[in-house]
């Protein structure tokens, strides 16, 4: 596979994952805010903004309308939903020959549908509905990708992009919630429940631990559950598998550099214990995993994508 194609597939997938994460957070937040006091809703919005943009403080006087507009449709916000989708599409367009027509058209249609949407048009009735519908389309895109694209090298680059992005986004969300757990206006019972919903984890969690919502169980589930698709452990397993499948003909030394990093991260997750983490250790653990993801990203590029031609001739 061309290195440039691998690069575009990887980033297309990261941006799709980022768009989906953004959409889900907005949808869940809009649906849950009606059940919160204004103070709790504001604190909760602030956490969403921080998770999606990295900004630690919410803009003054920002209401749900302004925040939603900024997170979803603001072209000046690098991580807005519309920008993420636009970047995903730009990358997909550059590798159309490496995608199935179904995948491209599904992504293109989604973008063309959301691109002209205005806040005024969605705010009059149930604002969350548009985001729920977009999420359905994103899930359909994921299904179409799974079932129309050969599960060869290109598909594994998509997997890599998706799960590296997912670990980073999920990590940031967990960090924000667990760092604030002891603080005065920290997450309350309802906020923990919303956190599970942010991760589409509410139903799977209750199946596993019953409906008793406890931060420690949530951490255990979202960090270490090997079967739930939005847990760190699950994503790390997928990344490890994908890294073993890409660039099959690359020189062994290059492969080893990537696989060593993947093995180290997998060990950290496989042998992590939630009870060791609870007294403030969740944040440190996540910071470590996030750092390892960045190292894997760098090595992936050095080994397979941006390597110097002089080193192989």
């Amino acid at each position, binding site marked *: 596979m061309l290195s440039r194609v691998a690069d575009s597939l990887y980033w297309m997938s990261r941006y799709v994952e980022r768009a989906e994460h953004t959409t889900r957070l907005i949808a869940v937040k809009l649906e849950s805010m009606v059940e919160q006091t204004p103070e709790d809703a504001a604190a909760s919005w602030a956490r969403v903004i921080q998770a999606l943009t990295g900004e630690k403080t919410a803009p003054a006087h920002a209401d749900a309308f302004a925040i939603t507009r900024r997170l979803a449709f603001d072209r000046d916000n690098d991580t807005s939903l519309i920008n993420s989708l636009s970047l995903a599409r730009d990358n997909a367009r550059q590798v159309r020959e490496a995608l199935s027509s179904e995948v491209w058209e599904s992504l293109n*249609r989604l973008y063309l549908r959301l691109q002209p949407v205005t806040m005024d048009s969605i705010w009059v009735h149930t604002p969350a509905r548009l985001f729920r519908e977009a999420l359905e389309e994103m899930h359909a895109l994921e299904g179409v990708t799974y079932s129309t694209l050969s599960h060869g090298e290109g598909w594994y680059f998509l997997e890599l992009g998706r799960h590296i992005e997912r670990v980073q986004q999920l990590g940031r969300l967990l960090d924000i919630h667990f760092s604030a757990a002891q603080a005065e206006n920290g997450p309350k019972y309802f906020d923990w429940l919303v956190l599970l919903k942010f991760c589409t984890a509410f139903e799977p969690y209750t199946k596993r631990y019953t409906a008793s919502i406890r931060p420690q169980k949530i951490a255990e589930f979202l960090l270490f559950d090997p079967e739930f698709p939005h847990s760190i452990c699950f994503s790390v397993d997928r990344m490890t598998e994908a890294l073993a499948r890409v*660039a099959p003909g690359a020189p062994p030394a290059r492969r080893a550099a990537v696989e060593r990093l993947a093995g180290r991260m997998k060990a950290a997750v496989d042998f992590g214990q939630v009870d060791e983490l609870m007294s403030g250790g969740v944040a440190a653990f996540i910071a470590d995993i996030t750092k390892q993801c960045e190292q894997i990203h760098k090595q992936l590029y050095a080994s397979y994508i941006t390597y110097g031609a002089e080193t192989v001739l």
Partner: protein
Amino acid sequence: MQHEAFANTEDFGGPDIVAGPGRIARPGQDAPYADYELGRPYDEMFTPDGKARAPYAAMDSRLSTLPLEELNRRQQACEQSFLHQGITFTVYNDNKATERIIPTDLIPRIITGAEWARLEAGLTQRILALNLFLRDIYNDGRVLKDGVVPRSMIYGSRHYRREMRGLPVPHGAYVNICGSDLIRNEAGDFVVLEDNLRVPSGVSYMLANRDVARRAFPAVFRSMGVRPIEHYPLELLATLRSLVPFQEEATIAVLTPGVFNSAYFEHAFLARQMGVELVEGRDLLVNDNVVYTRTTSGLKRIDVIYRRIDDDFIDPLIFREDSALGVPGLFNAYRAGNVMIANALGTGVADDKAVYAYVPRLIRYYLAEEPILDNVETFLCREDASLSHVLANLDKLVVKAVGESGGYGMLVGPHASQAERDDFARKIKADPENYIAQPTIQLSTAPAFVGGGVEARHVDLRPFILHGAETKIVPGALTRVALKRGSLVVNSSQGGGSKDTWVLSN
């Protein structure tokens, strides 16, 4: 509720039956042809007295019975489908990029089997002569020594590539992919307007339009014995493979300037349809005169490049040094015979306006045959008799500067003022070699669905000729259509669109 723009627009269906004999709609009088003008130009569908020509009978009865709203719905469905497939080009305005689709007209243009046989023979003859000409001027220059074509016209052309002199080219096939533009004149004969021998585009629209027309008129399509064109990518692949001896094992790539090129959709489409790599200049590198592409597993050798980049930009070491699209060292690899490039470099010398006028003579010279397809009558001002004819008839002719394109340096006699004509006459006399003249050309008209009815619009025809070890022409073409009433400009940047072309088996 579904968002309106999100409804299932790929459904072109709906009842589609070929109606029996019934009401006969007359052009210029009855719906849907109430605004259908029959004038001086040849009309593809109707005879001058308003009767549908035989090949259009089934289409006529379908159009006469299909409710216009239904036609409208199908037109919109088709536009949605193009948008979703990303068959668009980008217009940059005020730093804002807008994506537009190239308008497609639903109503196919029909060409009979007999007409096609003649076109096919004529185009084959033409590509053979042009390739022999290119081989000649890059080797012995026999045609120049014999005085058939003036030496200065070739060696003075900015598209003549000295670097190509004496280079062996497989099968002598310099032009592997050609898109010739033809028009049908008032007498109903096809004549060649120009040959595009560099990087002709539009073949993806030929294939996309087929999809559209077949879905819009399934029953008519089935009933008429339309010859298939879907194997074009396969024929293209075979042509590219024929340039190297180890055909099946050859690694082939389509070289594109990138996603910002207006034909990018086509480049990606052809690569996908052929199952070969789509590469940009930055994906390729040359080492020891061998071309490689950078892959995740390491460098991979490339044997044949179907390039969609102009000569000037293909190798900054040899041609334009400011080109960021090309591949440094590519030409040397080509010269060393380690990579084949289609089309070969330097083919542009054979498709400028002056050489065009010589093509009938080239056919006679190389093949000792009479041209099957005529040119549009062209007067070369470098020849004394023509020069005096042109100067005496400036009010009836279109005069073009040879080296220019895009309407620059052009005089449209009938629309110019006396002062403009006088001014142009002086220019021609000062440098006659630089000018040619042609009569004003009448393009034929064909039915198009516009403004809620079916009206006559001017069309041309661009078939695609493949030439490697052998010559192949897929029985179809891109029919470009000037969608503005009365306009003769079929160019997509000026309100032109395109439509499917049905070549019948008999």
